[in-house]
Structures are given as C-alpha cells and as structure tokens.
C-alpha cells in the first residue's frame, strides 16, 4: 500500500501544484482566455463541449485501435516471415526502416490523396507509424532463442513448427510486449497527425480536427480540452498495455517480478 502511495503521490502533488500555479498566473496577470485559458476554464469547457468533443474522441480512438490491431497482426506476421528466411529479412528490413524514418507528416497528404476513403487513409498513416516497433522487437525476440534450448529441441527430434511454437514464440513474448507498449502510443500520434493533415484539407474527423477548428475560431479553451483528451487517451493506452504485459509475464519474466529490497 505505502509502495503504491510513494509511487503515485509525488507526481500527483507536483501536478496539482503546477495546475494551481497556472491558474494563479492566469488570474493575477489577467491573461485573456484566447491566449492562455486557466485549467478551471479548460475543465469547464470539457464539460460544456462534451457533446462535440466526445464523438470526435471516439473517432480518433477507433482509428488508433484499428491501426494498432493491424500493426500487431501485420507486424507479427512479417516478423515470422523474417525468421523463416534470412534472405527475406535482409531484403525487406531496409524498407521497413525507410517506412519508419520517413516523417508521417510528409507522406500523409499523398496517402490521403491516393486513398479516397478518409478513415482508411488515416488508418494507413497510423499503421505506418505503429508497426515498426512491433516488427523490430518481435524479430529480435524470435531470433533470441537460447542456443542450447534449440539444441535440446533438435536432440529430441523437434520439427521446425514445434521449435517455433514451443520455443521461439514464448521466448519472443517479452520483446513483442515491449514493442506493443511503444506502438500503442505511436498509433495514437499517427492517427492525430494524419487527422491534422486531413483536417487542413477540409475533411472532418476526430479530435485533431476539433483542435484545428477551435484554432480557426479562436476557441482556445476547447483546443486545450481536446488536447487534454488526447493526452489522457495516450496515458490510458500506455497503462492498459503495461497492465497487459504484466499480466502475461508476471509468472516468469524478470521485468514483472516483484523483488524485496
């Protein structure tokens, strides 16, 4: 119990102090709300504008979730393909890297032009950002099987399939879950960035569009409220994936083992 308190209390106190300071500065300096709204006003706006913001949040989260799902399925399949043949890995991996290092903001307009269906275009953008950590980590994990255990499987006449299911796949689990935690946040970022690009083109969708719209119409408190929603979603995604990782690994992996002292 005290362990939890010690982990949660410091950031909570620090955050609260920051918010109080922010509110005080805004009030004492008389900063107008269209430059910097105080946290109380942002909160009030979140409540009053819930009817507009909440459906947009759902749109953004749907794209994020779908992109993450596709990233997991495609990422794991590609990793498996990589471990089946060194030639495929050597041939394809550079392109996975190229896809990863190309700024999504730069290629999003193209994708949105090419793919007429806006949600699909957004999903593709978010997927491009999210899938690399999964491919890279899972590939590393699948290739990290203990050499002696591979020998042992060989000794007992294990088939390639058995080595894969009983040795490589469970061994890759911690790596995959590590990649998944990174990808969860990236999928959200990818979705929001793509929405921004689509939003400037006039397509209505998601929370990013609400931020753009609020900017155009000087509704700065609403902009902050939308931003708050995106941040909270990111934190929740991270916490959920961390919990999932802990749940899967708690019985055996060092990362999930509770230690005394």
């Amino acid at each position: 119990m005290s362990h939890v308190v010690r982990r949660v209390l410091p950031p909570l106190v620090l955050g609260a102090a920051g918010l109080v300071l922010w509110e005080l500065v805004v009030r004492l300096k008389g900063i107008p709300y269209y430059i910097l709204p105080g946290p109380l006003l942002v909160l009030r706006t979140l409540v009053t504008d819930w009817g507009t913001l909440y459906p947009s949040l759902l749109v953004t989260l749907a794209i994020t979730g779908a992109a993450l799902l596709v990233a997991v399925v495609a990422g794991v399949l590609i990793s498996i393909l990589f471990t089946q043949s060194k030639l495929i890995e050597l041939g394809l991996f550079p392109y996975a890297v190229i896809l990863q290092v190309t700024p999504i903001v730069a290629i999003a307009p193209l994708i949105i032009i090419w793919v007429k269906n806006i949600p699909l275009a957004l999903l593709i953008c978010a997927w491009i950002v999210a899938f690399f950590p999964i491919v890279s980590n899972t590939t590393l994990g699948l290739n990290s099987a203990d050499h002696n255990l591979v020998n042992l499987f060989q000794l007992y006449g294990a088939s390639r399939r058995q080595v894969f299911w009983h040795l490589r796949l469970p061994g890759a689990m911690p790596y995959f879950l590590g990649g998944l935690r990174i990808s969860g946040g990236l999928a959200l970022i990818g979705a929001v960035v793509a929405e921004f690009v689509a939003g400037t083109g006039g397509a209505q969708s998601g929370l990013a569009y609400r931020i753009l719209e609020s900017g155009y119409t000087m509704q700065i408190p609403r902009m902050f409220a939308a931003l708050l929603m995106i941040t909270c979603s990111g934190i929740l995604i991270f916490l959920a994936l961390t919990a999932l990782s802990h749940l899967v690994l708690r019985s055996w992996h060092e990362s999930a083992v509770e230690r005394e002292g």
Partner: protein
Amino acid sequence: MIARLHDVDKIYGNGVVAVRGLSLDVDEGEFLSLLGPSGCGKSTVLRLVAGLGEISGGRIEWPGGGGRPGLPQGDIGFVFQEPTLMPWATVSKNVLLPLKLRGTAAAEAAARTREAIGLVGLDGFEHAYPRQLSGGMKMRVSIARALVTRPRLLLMDEPFASLDEITRFKLDNDLRELWARQRWTVVFVTHSVYESVYLSTRIAVMTGRPGRLASEVKIDAPSPRDDAFRTSSLYNEYCRQVSARLAEATAA
C-alpha cells in the same frame, strides 16, 4: 558396448581443430568421465555423440541400435552446463518437454514426468517457475528432463561446474546413488579430478587441444559411494594417480 568412437576428428568452420583422432568405447552400464583441461574438446565430443554437429572425420558406431540415424532419439538424455530451462514454463512443463515433442500420450507423459521429478527429489516443486529455484534445484530439473525419456545413455556436460561446492557434493552424491539404482550408461564431462574419481567407474583423460585420448583409469572402488569414500585412502590414491595422468596429458 553402447557406442564406439572411431578416429573421430572435429574441425570447426573457423579452422580450429577441436578433436583429432579420438577413439573411445562407451560400455553398457558404465559411468565414464571425460577429464581434460579447459578447451580440450571434451564438450565437443559429447555433442558429437549426441548428434549435435557434424563429424569432420572418423565415425561413431552404435552396435546396439544400428547406425547413428537409426538410434532412437529417446535413448539419449543430455544435460548442459547451464540448466537450460524454459523460463516461461513450470518445473513440470520443463520436464515434460521431451515427451511432448515426441508425442507421448498425455496420461503416460504425466506419470513419467512425476516419476522423473521424484527421482531428482523435487516433489512439491512441480508448479514452481525456474526463477523461483536455486541453482542446484534448476540443475535437478535439467537432470529430470534428461531422465524423463528413460534414456539408455545419459550425456552430461560439466553439469555442476557453476554450482558452489556444498551443492555440488550433494548433487554428486545423489547422481551417483541414482546411477547405482538405475544403471543407465553415463558419459560425464568434467575438469575436476575429484569429481571424476568420486563418480566414475572409468575415466578417460584427454590432452589439450586438439583433444585426443591420453590414458584411461579404471576406478575399482565399492559401488555405494558416500562421504566416507571421499576421505578414504583409496579415493586419495586414485585422485593422486588421475592427477598425475592429467599432468602428463597436459604436458604432452
């Protein structure tokens, strides 16, 4: 005789000659130790016998079971230097692995797993994960896994080298006692004179790299060996003799 190594060479891809012209018979029911300095190719020999890796020259014959490919897989158990357990699997699941890979029926596999865990004295730890076990207990799991197929030949590659001396003595005692009861054939790789004398019925002393057979010593001592044997004059005499042979082999 269970296996005969005939003029076996092993040259690795990088040109290192690990073993040259090694000839050695492994007799049914014996406890044979391969003793030699570090890097003399003892482990390589063991891996070749297990069929892990290609022989560069010579051959290994299996008089009982036909040619090497014809030897049933289950006839060999292998214990590595490290416990080499699957960290995500419980003790039970680790021990069960060889049977699972061979598709043994579930009921029989479960019974044999229980039996093997009992043999190494780990009753009650079936559902523990490797990280919850001490180094010695992990090694016991590894031995149980090697025994679960009821092998005719048990190959052990310095299994206790990384354990503390107290744990090591205990495991030596238990292994020796288990062998006396079950009478499989054991080939045990070690660089400890004392361990090899305590455990073995015969010791093959190897030279430094490239590994060859330097000499053999038969340990003609009573079968139930215990801590009293460790302090006996007979034990000391054998240790002195084997040490001298090892010194000769290393100098040559």
